[in-house]
């Protein structure tokens, strides 16, 4: 939370409409993302019930499990899902990239909410160790699906990654509604504030969207009253038809179950694509492509690992892998914070309010100033920025202007004069090699600029020991991957 976002929420509550809190989109959006809306059986860790999936808004693939507690049907569902997801992913692995470059694009998955990411993670975990031969054999595509879902859900832990995106999270990151964050977790209610029904305020629209009959929950948990009043009878009808061997009745019962589940999925499917359209309406932030490149690299790496026959992701990360991951996540977060502020004046405004950035006009400039104190003369122009904002940075600190990222500015002096503060800055870099600055490389008098101490500087990647060198203080080297034996396989699938 922040003051600007809180103010936007208050405004939204007053006007009855969501308010923008970003000027650009900070997340990559594919031209044809794959939307995945899963449902699971209540009370079970990961028993899929149904899903709508696909990259064509008008033509989703519907998957249903008629008996969610049946192991075979569960893995049939996984195979059917694999047919959609794995072939979608495969579509991005051609043509091969040149050596030392990533694939030119990567497949992007969109799900309704963070719980759906959790479901994908568990579905990945429950399928990636399955064996494709022997007593409990599954189709070859099932463990492959598991490895892809595991890869995607793991990548989604990084705030900078856009490979697997939760719609509620990304919408709430770009718009402030007149309701609480807890209520924003409901996709229908959140979208109602951003794009209210015709003739209604966002507030009224959101209240209507809380009715689970008209707007079923976006999953993966189903509406309990749907379970108790509809699904239970449908599932019972299937069981009875099976027990009595009535083929006709079984077909009818299955069709009825599928139709009922469809009513719970379709509204969310529509909302997902509405969300996609709204996000497309925002222009992309300048650093989004840079972060997407990291995602493309990760995708390229995973494809290579699969082709090389690498082992599936372990149940839990070893000590070295965990430490490396944590370091990477911290680095990602830091880089993301800086990039978002540089790309978006509304984000930078938060830092200005906090005194970590200041904006103002150039009041004075000494563009050809040369520092001759050292062995060699150096071009070190000075400018004086006059600002009405709080300046927390002290002389000696280095600040950067987002519009001039290649140029450092050292604070020489800060003088408060009445309501204004005059900041003297010494510039270095980005002005050419001679002792005369290239035209335009030193800000001119009157130019409006923002300077901030926030910077995405180079930081060496911390070094970690090899996996085999894990010290005994951290449990020693983790065991090698061993495929599950029959007994374990069976035990896990009883539920």
């Amino acid at each position, binding site marked *: 939370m922040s003051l600007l976002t809180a*103010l936007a*929420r*208050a405004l939204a509550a007053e006007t009855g409409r969501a308010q923008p809190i970003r000027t650009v989109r900070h997340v990559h959006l594919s031209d044809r993302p794959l939307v995945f809306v899963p449902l699971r059986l209540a009370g079970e*860790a990961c028993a899929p019930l149904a899903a709508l999936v696909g990259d064509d808004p008008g033509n989703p693939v519907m998957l249903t499990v008629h008996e969610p507690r049946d192991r075979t049907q569960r893995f049939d569902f996984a195979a059917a899902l694999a047919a959609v997801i794995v072939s979608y992913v495969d579509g991005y692995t051609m043509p091969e990239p040149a050596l030392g470059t990533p694939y030119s694009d990567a497949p992007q998955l969109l799900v309704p909410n963070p719980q759906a990411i959790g479901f994908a993670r568990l579905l990945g975990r429950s399928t990636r160790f399955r064996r494709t031969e022997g007593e409990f054999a599954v189709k070859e595509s099932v463990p492959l699906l598991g490895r892809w879902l595991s890869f995607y859900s793991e990548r989604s832990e990084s705030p900078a990654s856009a490979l697997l995106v939760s719609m509620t999270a990304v919408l709430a990151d770009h718009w402030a509604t*007149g*309701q609480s964050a807890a209520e924003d977790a409901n996709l229908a209610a959140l979208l109602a504030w951003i794009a209210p029904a015709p003739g209604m305020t966002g507030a009224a629209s959101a209240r209507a969207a*809380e009715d689970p009959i008209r707007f079923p929950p976006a999953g993966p948990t189903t509406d309990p009253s749907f379970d*108790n009043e509809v699904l*239970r009878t449908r599932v019972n009808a299937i069981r009875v038809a099976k027990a009595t061997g009535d083929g006709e009745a079984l077909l009818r019962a299955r069709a009825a179950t599928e139709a009922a589940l469809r009513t719970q999925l379709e509204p969310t499917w529509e909302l997902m694509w509405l969300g996609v359209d709204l996000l497309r309406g925002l222009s992309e932030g300048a650093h989004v492509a840079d972060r997407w490149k990291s995602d493309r690299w990760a995708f390229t790496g995973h494809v290579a690992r699969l082709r090389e026959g690498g082992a599936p992701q372990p149940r839990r990360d070893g000590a070295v892998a965990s430490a490396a991951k944590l370091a990477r996540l911290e680095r990602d977060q830091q880089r993301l914070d800086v990039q978002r502020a540089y790309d978006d004046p509304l984000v930078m405004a938060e830092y200005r309010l906090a005194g970590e950035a200041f904006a103002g006009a150039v009041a004075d400039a000494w563009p050809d100033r040369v520092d001759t104190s050292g062995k060699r003369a150096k071009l070190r122009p000075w400018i004086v920025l006059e600002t009405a904002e709080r300046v927390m940075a002290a002389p000696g600190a280095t600040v950067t202007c987002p519009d001039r990222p290649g140029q450092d500015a050292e604070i020489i002096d800060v003088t408060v004069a009445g309501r204004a503060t005059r900041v003297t800055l010494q510039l270095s870099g980005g002005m050419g090699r001679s002792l005369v600055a290239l035209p335009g490389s030193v800000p001119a008098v009157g130019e409006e600029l923002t300077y901030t101490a926030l910077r995405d500087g180079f930081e060496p990647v911390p070094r970690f020991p090899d996996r085999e060198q894990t010290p005994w203080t951290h449990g020693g080297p983790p065991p090698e991957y061993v495929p599950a034996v029959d007994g374990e396989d069976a035990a*896990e699938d009883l539920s």
Partner: protein
Amino acid sequence: MDSVESRLARVRGRTMPRRYDARTISALTANPGCARRALMDAAGIDKQKLAAHTGYPAPFGQSEFAITRGNAFEAQIKDNGAAQLLTLLREVLALDVTEAHYTDLNEVGGNADNELRHVYTKQRLTAPPGHRGTMFDHPLLRFTVAGRHAYLEPDLIAFQHRGQFHVIEIKSFAIVDGQADPAKVAAAAMQSAVYVLALSDLLGGNGQVHHETILVCPRDFSNEPTAAKIDVRRQLTVIRRQLSRIAHIEQLLDEYPDDLTFDLDPDEHQRPRRPAEELASAIRQVGASYDPQCLSTCELCYLCRDEAQGTTGALGKAVRADLGGIEYTRQALDLARGAVPTADREEAAVMLLQAAQLREQILGETV
């Protein structure tokens, strides 16, 4: 002078009282400043019915699939004198349980009277070591909330090991690769902590109840149980502190007229006949302290949320704090638009004005 009991009975009206359980107590501790909830829970009111009758049905229910699964798992654990549980305690937790003795405290000789069951529970748990057994199914504990006794019937087993009792909580959410849904684990820890407190009360509070409780859940994607120890010391502190903040019910009752009642005036089919508006105005007499968190813990949340419209708190605690603790969105926006602040709001006003100016500057729209 009326007794507290008879006044609470009048507040409740002609419906059967609902009992506190560990869930309602831990929910109560989530919002100890809410007089409405404190009074209704003390009177044993069916808040769900109340909410539905006033046109604000509670937004939650439980799927029968989940209930069935939960019951089946609990039954499986307790089957054969909790044989599976015992193996688990030995293997997973390396506890040297030499002798297993399973005591069912569900009823006393066919009698399920609360007081009787509580006394019997106490007798069995305080018997000399050689005679008290190791596992106790459904003990009936008593707990003091807002100066009143509440009976707690945990669907758990208090388990005795080296002279100390461990509270065991059986839940049907899965622990996959040693990890489980943090929200569910947190809720389970809170409930266990309530039981620890109640059990300590019963045993005279001399440290016989261990602060490590045992959570039993299905392992991975199977029906096989697994167990984990949970240290609930932090939860114990939270609950003790929050309970001490809940006003004593006598003092609470003193603030309201003698004839205050949430009676639904049920007909012979238990259908409420009391005019909804009249009931709603009775509810409004008792102040609530709404927080968006209530949406997942309290049956009356939609009613209170409507009442809280226009407050910054309805947008969330963090939003309220960011807006300088100002109570109403209207006031905050006035200050953002340059209204002259009162002395205590000068600092907040400066920040709001600045924020509004930045927003205008960047988006080109007036706030």
